[in-house]
């Protein structure tokens, strides 16, 4: 059921996958690439880091506005 032969992807590729996931948009060829290379651990860690970055970014913007 799961593919154990994944080589793992670069940080950049994980970041791209996570950002497009947050937007909800992904090109089909990129998706196939992700499916071939990304491991579940990479996606989960990437997603958590993405969520933290999302919160920190909004907080940063909000603080600039309020100041």
């Amino acid at each position, binding site marked *: 059921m799961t593919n154990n032969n994944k080589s793992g992807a670069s940080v950049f590729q994980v970041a791209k996958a996570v950002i497009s996931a*947050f*937007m*909800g948009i992904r090109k089909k060829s990129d998706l196939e690439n992700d499916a071939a290379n990304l491991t579940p651990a990479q996606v989960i860690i990437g997603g958590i880091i993405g969520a933290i970055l999302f*919160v920190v970014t909004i*907080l940063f913007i*909000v603080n600039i506005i309020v100041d």
Partner: protein
Amino acid sequence: MAAVHGDVHDHGHDDHHPTGISRWLTTTNHKDIGTMYLWFSLAMFFTGGFLAMGIRAELFQPGIQILEPELFNSFTTLHGLIMVFGAIMPAFVGFANWQVPMMIGAPDMAFARMNLWSFWLLPIAATLLVSSFFVPGGAAAGGWTFYPPLSTQGGLGVDMMIFAVHILGASSIMGAINIITTILNMRAPGMKLMDMPLFVWTWLITAYLLVLVMPVLAGTVTMLLTDRHFGTSFFNAAGGGDPVLFQHIFWFFGHPEVYIMILPSFGIVSEVIPTFSRKPLFGYSSMVYATASIAILSCVVWAHHMFTAGMPTVAQLFFMYATMLIAVPTGVKVFNWTATMWQGAMSFETPMLFAIGFIFLFVIGGFSGVICAIVPIDIQVQDTYYVIAHFHYVLVSGSLFALFAGAYYWIPKWTGRMYDEKLGKLHFWLSMIFFNLTFFVQHFLGLAGMPRRIPDYALQFADFNMISSIGAFGFGLSQVLFVYIMIKTIRSGEKAPEKPWDGATTLEWTHLPTPAPYHSFEKPPVFKPTVH
């Protein structure tokens, strides 16, 4: 999504199971348990609906006519609790029980006995909730959100509600664990995660949300219970606690809860629209990603429910921006459904009508949600009928319409009989018209300043309230028609063809006979993925 591969299995050989009442008490079959979930949620839908009729009857004209104010408050409180925890959530679990194993080619749910246990907890909780009307002091009356100090003051009815919420939470967590385990471990050989039907995907993500937030709710009501009876002061300012803490914890559960009630709807609609457009779902992977994204974002927007409770400007802006951003992945979904229909060979059977009705009305609810997300506007409309209108557009024409779409779509597979198409369409149009008559005018009432949860109101709100009540009575009666259609289908509906929907591509339509046999996929099907 899946290409037919291999023959339909011979399923008729061991359909032996207990009959009569013992079948339902002892069954571990996912289809039986799914059926019980669905009938239970229908019964609760009418119980909650009865309370709604009481509310609208009282609000038909100004003054107190039918319900004393205290009883009116109990009606609004129990209407919310019963609809959320008794009708909508169990209905989706019922769909998951029937559909998830069949759609992934599994023989049953992973934990069959736990599945039965999580169902039988529900009638116990429902009995507690409904019988609380008849105990001294009456049912809980502090609103479905049971904010303290109101909920620390009520009588026995509040304790019964707290216990009911505990039980319902336990049931939901067990159901969610079951669904996660089934999906992750029991898919047909060859079916990767990205090959799963969207309904399965949305339920997988919903189940994770349930596991994440239901314990938070359990913790909240336990703190409430200890505040009430064991001398703690978590939410009591006099003892050094803070009632606003309750709101934060409650809404940390409450907002993901909104998505728990809408993500499986997205899943159902994502099955129905491609089938009746005779095209694969547009942007399958985007849909999966958007669902995951919505689930994550749903955990960082909770305080938009409490802008008027008092919080720093930084927090107000943070929650406002985060809330508005959640519209992005939701918008992606709406565009994808629309693009799926674009240039499709569309037909408009009842499930498709409800799915299109869902998109149309859910977008209205979504937009009024973005309006409520804007802090200065929310401060004006907080606790008014505008908010009532907003969340009924999301939960009635969102969740409920999707449930209707799913019921009409899968009833031929479940029973082997077709529903009456003319009556189904009549049900759709009556629901559509009366729903809008009930809730659209409530936007005007809210903008004019009518507060929610009041049994009496000022004269200037009279006309719109009368219109809304007429719409509500019509909507309520229309749902009796739904029950008639379903019973007629089960008892005397025409025999359904093997594959009534020519555009359907998921395993339950391509690999199983109609009606689905009592035991399906004892041997896993050979699944061959095709292009999404």
